[in-house]
């Protein structure tokens, strides 16, 4: 099983994701340079957080047009696993690999804090190690995480069960004050119809080791690694 972590010049969570895959989950990982349209055989591709190209225009806007994203798109279309975290989620929406858009936070400020997430779908490779309805604690750190789409599109997302994670109160109930960036329908994470492309604003890699006081995010990577291994085993 090979994992690839995409490196845009302004990625700054690339090493953090690498660390979890390599040192916590003991996987083979390599960095994938933004300027090369190649995934070097990666079966799980992670688009990490950061400011891919400075992102002064919109988070992920320029990155969506980068050479590596052509290869990521092909990989996704073949059913390969793609995970976008924070800026990576923004890149996936800008690249139209996931629907909707991530706009500036409701409060117009960067927010770095812990949030609570309810697992809405436990049947994607990324959430398979969780139980539906389970509440996770995860850090966020973003200025543009306010998920938006047209109302009828939001209805469709719900109908198609694309919403994978929602911001909730610690007890798992929906609550506006816990929807810290103002996302429509409290959407924190989305999957595509096939479940193989997954994006979320919170940072699972920042809560994947007990030494940091929280390991709720580890199972997301573990699930993705297992899912990718199975796909590879199935001789895709």
């Amino acid at each position, binding site marked *: 099983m090979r994992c690839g972590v995409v490196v845009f010049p302004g990625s700054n969570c690339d090493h953090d994701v690498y660390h979890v895959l390599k040192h916590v989950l003991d996987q083979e990982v390599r960095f994938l340079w933004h300027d090369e349209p190649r995934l070097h055989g990666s079966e799980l591709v992670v688009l990490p957080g950061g400011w891919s190209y400075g992102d002064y*225009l919109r988070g992920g806007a320029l990155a969506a047009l980068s050479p590596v994203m052509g290869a990521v798109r092909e990989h996704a279309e073949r059913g390969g696993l793609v995970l976008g975290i924070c800026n990576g989620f923004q890149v996936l*929406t800008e690249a139209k690999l996931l*629907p909707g858009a991530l*706009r500036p936070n*409701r*409060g*117009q400020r960067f927010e770095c804090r812990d949030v609570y997430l309810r697992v809405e779908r436990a049947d994607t490779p990324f959430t398979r190690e969780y139980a539906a309805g389970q509440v996770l604690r995860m850090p966020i750190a973003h200025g543009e995480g*306010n998920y938006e*789409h047209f*109302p009828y599109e939001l209805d469709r997302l719900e109908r198609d069960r694309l919403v994978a994670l929602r911001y909730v109160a610690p007890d798992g109930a929906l609550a506006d004050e816990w929807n810290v960036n103002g996302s429509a329908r409290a959407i924190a994470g989305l999957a595509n119809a096939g479940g193989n492309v997954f994006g979320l604003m919170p940072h699972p890699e920042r809560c994947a080791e007990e030494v940091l006081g929280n390991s709720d995010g580890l199972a997301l990577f573990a699930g993705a690694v297992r899912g990718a291994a199975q796909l590879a085993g199935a001789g895709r």
Partner: protein
Amino acid sequence: MKARVTVYPRKEILDPQGKAIQSALARVGFRSVREVRAGKSFELDLGVDDAQQAGDLLAAMCEKLLANTVVEDYEIELLAADAS
């Protein structure tokens, strides 16, 4: 040729930034303001002289990069031809 592109959140989409600015304006005394929409503005020196070509170029740039058409609308204005 110079041009200006203006990008605004689409009408159906919430504009929290505009709202925030409106209430900030009210706070410092500009209470008459009924609505604020906040967008982005780009001034470009296109490096082409033909208006038709410039328009096409701008539309392509907006679709591809300057606006996220899922949630944003854009407007294009050609400015007076470049003096240089």
